[in-house]
């Protein structure tokens, strides 16, 4: 058990910089999740903490101890590798016994070893596989064995690299729930890496979003969900991804230009009033100054409600036509053409058909505004437009936006 502190962690592979000065503080016993797309540097971060990466700059402290120049075997960390890294010539039992026999994780009598192994394998549901070799296991069983090799030993920090990634969807959900309840997990400081936002939200005491070797945002699951720092974070969480529209900011109005170039629809462009406090902070960061600029509006598909009754005046209403309705069991995923913009919405209203006109409503406080965007950057996952509100003002979600009249609404 111990805290983990990382300062200015920089890692290079040849000329490629994998990590750009990561700063991270994980308190004793915390479950910290690092979320990011592949290639973001998640595994490198874990291996750097473990001391397995050469050419690392920066400071790593485990339980207050500076780890500079400390060999991996002296760091008292345990790691589950994404590739499992099980010893192929050893059985499951021998694999799990390996950390207990090294003499660096405390001294265990043979009876104590087998008792611990029995406990861990029972918890993970692989007790009956103890005599098998890794090649005789399924991927899910291998992954649980790799996890068991971590849990079987005491450590200051557990480092888990996508420990659920190769399980099938249902087993993953079940293991996610089990993982949360494991005593060892709740007592030991854990750094957990995943690309699955649901895992991150479900497991993490806090979540750090990593992109291109930089931590974009660190916060509780609630914070990263409700107050994404930029469009990249916003898109990382949620399936389907958040709808993003580029809008022109003029004074206190953000308006999405109607219908692209063709202006196919005369009705219902998306226009949002921006409170002065927000627009002030935005214009500071937006090129073009206070007079205007462009921002991005973000609406999560599940925040949109398909209206059946009269349109409420206290919510933003988008009118459009359904171009695609995918039925996914209880839910229907709609693609709606709103004044030339494609909007994704998720509803449980099974009556919606393709071609139907629909009205979608979203509470004002669920509309996110991202500043500083040079344009709509939905194309790549990098979020390069750095759509971030200036000066750290917590303006997203936007609360208290006055209803604006847009078009002939």
């Amino acid at each position: 058990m111990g805290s983990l502190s990382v300062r200015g962690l920089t890692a290079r592979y040849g000329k490629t910089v994998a990590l750009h000065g990561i700063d991270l503080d994980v308190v004793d016993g915390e479950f910290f999740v690092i979320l990011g797309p592949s290639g973001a540097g998640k595994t490198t971060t874990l291996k750097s903490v473990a001391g397995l990466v050469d050419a690392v700059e920066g400071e790593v402290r485990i339980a207050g101890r500076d780890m500079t120049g400390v060999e991996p075997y002296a760091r008292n960390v345990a790691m589950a590798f994404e590739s499992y890294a099980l010893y192929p010539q050893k059985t499951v039992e021998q694999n799990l016994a390996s950390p207990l026999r090294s003499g660096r994780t405390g001294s265990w009598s043979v009876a104590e070893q087998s008792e611990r192994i029995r406990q861990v394998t029972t918890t993970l549901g692989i007790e009956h596989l103890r005599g098998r070799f890794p090649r005789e296991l399924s991927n899910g069983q291998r992954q649980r064995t790799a996890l068991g090799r971590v849990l079987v030993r005491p450590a200051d920090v557990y480092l888990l690299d996508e420990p659920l990634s190769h399980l099938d969807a249902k087993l993953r959900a079940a293991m996610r729930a089990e993982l949360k309840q494991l005593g060892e997990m709740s007592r030991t400081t854990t750094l957990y890496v995943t690309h699955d936002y649901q895992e991150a939200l479900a497991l993490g005491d806090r979540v750090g979003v990593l992109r291109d070797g930089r931590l974009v945002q660190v916060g509780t699951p609630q914070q990263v969900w409700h107050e994404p720092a930029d469009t990249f974070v916003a898109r990382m969480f949620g399936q389907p991804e958040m709808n993003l529209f580029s809008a022109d900011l003029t004074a206190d109005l953000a308006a999405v230009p109607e219908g692209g170039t063709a202006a196919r629809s005369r009705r219902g462009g998306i226009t949002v009033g921006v409170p002065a406090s927000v627009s002030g902070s935005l214009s500071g960061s937006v090129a073009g100054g206070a007079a205007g600029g462009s921002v991005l509006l973000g609406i999560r598909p599940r925040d949109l409600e398909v209206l059946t009754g009269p349109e409420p005046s206290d919510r933003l209403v988008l009118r459009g036509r359904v171009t695609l309705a995918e039925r996914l069991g209880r839910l229907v995923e709609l693609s709606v053409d709103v004044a030339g913009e494609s909007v994704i919405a998720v509803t449980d209203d099974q009556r919606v058909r393709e071609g139907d006109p629909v009205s979608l409503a979203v509470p004002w406080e669920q509309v996110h505004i991202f500043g500083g965007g040079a344009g709509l950057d939905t194309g790549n996952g990098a979020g390069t437009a750095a759509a971030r509100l200036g000066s750290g003002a917590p303006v997203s979600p936007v609360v208290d936006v006055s209803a604006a009249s847009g078009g002939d609404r």
Partner: protein
Amino acid sequence: MTRERQPGQRRFSPASIGADVVLLAWFLFSLFPLIWLVLLSLKSESEQISTFFEFTPTLSNFATVLSDEGARLTSVNFTEALLTSVLNCVGAVLVSLVIGVPAAYAAGRWQYKGSGDVMFTILSFRFAPELMVIVPLFVIYNQLGLFDTNVGMIWVLQLVTMPLIVWILRSYFQDLPPELEQAALLDGYTRKRAFLMVALPLVRPGIAASALLAFIFAWNNYVFPLILTGSSHTPVTVAVTRFLGGGGQAFYSLTAAAAIIAALPPLLVALSIQRYLVRGLSFGAVKA
């Protein structure tokens, strides 16, 4: 009755039959020296220069080669030469393994400044002609008193065995996922123990294959012992050629018998170990 041919079904066309004939001819052509060697070894001294296939087979050549009579003819005891060869080659391979396995591991795992040059230098032992270094070696061996000794032979055979073992095993180590040793490090094992406990057992097939190849190359080496040994520590390759005589009579059938005897040990080693040669590294350690 004609049956319709299914896709992929074998068809006998003139081209395919022609190809088979060519292959068969090539097979016979390349195998003929071996056949001739066996036939020659079974011929008596009077028949040894006849090219007819008809002769009275005899095993007396083998007996002569291994007896004192053979030693009298060549002034080298062939049985002792066999033992010398076994000793030299096993010794050379063992020394190469002790030094070469850690070297191969280091070469496969770590890149450092000049690591490529070191590996190239080791490889260059293989493709530099032996005759190029033999004269200085001869002078050095005479000065150090290593001429015509087993230690001297084991030493010089390192030029043959070491590059093979290092280069073959390096690729085996490179194929091992480094995360296996990293896992061992995090389990609390030192790098040395991680190497001994995890990496070494997994390259056993590679060690067997490279050691066998090195043994065969060392066994067949001719130039080094020809120059660097006298009559007391002659290995088998040189001993075989003694039957061709140096100015005296050439005993072709005895040479053939000696060559066959000399070829047996590597053949037996290869047969006994061939499952390691065929078996790949299919382990299931890492996700496929």
